[in-house]
């Protein structure tokens, strides 16, 4: 079956611009996570959805970052007024409703965001 997909795979933008990153989770997975990862570091948690609602958005670094999941499937991470420090790999993961929040997460290939 299809895994988690993320688009685009690469995004280059200019400082100050707005970007949207899309995640399509595994069908039937109710939990969805967004992380960002800088080179040489582990993933940094951003936000966790259970269904359509953000169950925990404590990892969003500031109000320029926002994520939605209106129908409980596809999610979009939105970054306003991008800064060079936002450059990173943005990873999305999903997990089965049968699994607990801390159980196996399936990751997508990521979107490499570069802010010039």
């Amino acid at each position, binding site marked *: 079956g299809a895994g988690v997909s993320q688009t685009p795979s690469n995004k280059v933008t200019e400082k100050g611009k707005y970007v949207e990153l899309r995640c399509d989770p595994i069908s039937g997975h109710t939990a969805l996570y967004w992380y960002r990862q800088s080179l040489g570091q582990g*993933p940094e948690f951003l936000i966790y959805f259970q269904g359509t609602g953000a169950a925990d958005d404590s990892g969003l670094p500031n109000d320029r970052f926002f994520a939605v999941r209106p129908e409980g499937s596809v999610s979009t991470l939105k970054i306003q007024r991008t800064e060079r420090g936002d450059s990173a790999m943005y990873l999305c993961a999903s997990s089965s409703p049968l699994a607990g929040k801390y159980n196996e997460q399936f990751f997508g290939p*990521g979107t490499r965001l570069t802010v010039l």
Partner: protein
Amino acid sequence: LAKTTQPISMDSYEGQEVNITCSHNNIATNDYITWYQQFPSQGPRFIIQGYKTKVTNEVASLFIPADRKSSTLSLPRVSLSDTAVYYCLVGGERRDSNYQLIWGAGTKLIIKP
């Protein structure tokens, strides 16, 4: 917070057994121990999870002592394709708040021919 400590890097050779130990002194009663593998330019991939004693699957074993303050991921007979970064995570439900899995920098494992 239940932080984890792992070696930054390890080297080994093809065909050897590799053991990566992770320290988590502040592990809580509800916490599970989970290991992921990550190749360059890919998302992490779940390897194994355990709560106590020993867990084994088709790719690895996880050894957890009685006090649960550490855990050891064991990879039998490694090959060059096992060269990757390995993350140890600790997390579980909290009654009073959300608790997110904290990812450290991981252990960079390099397998040599």
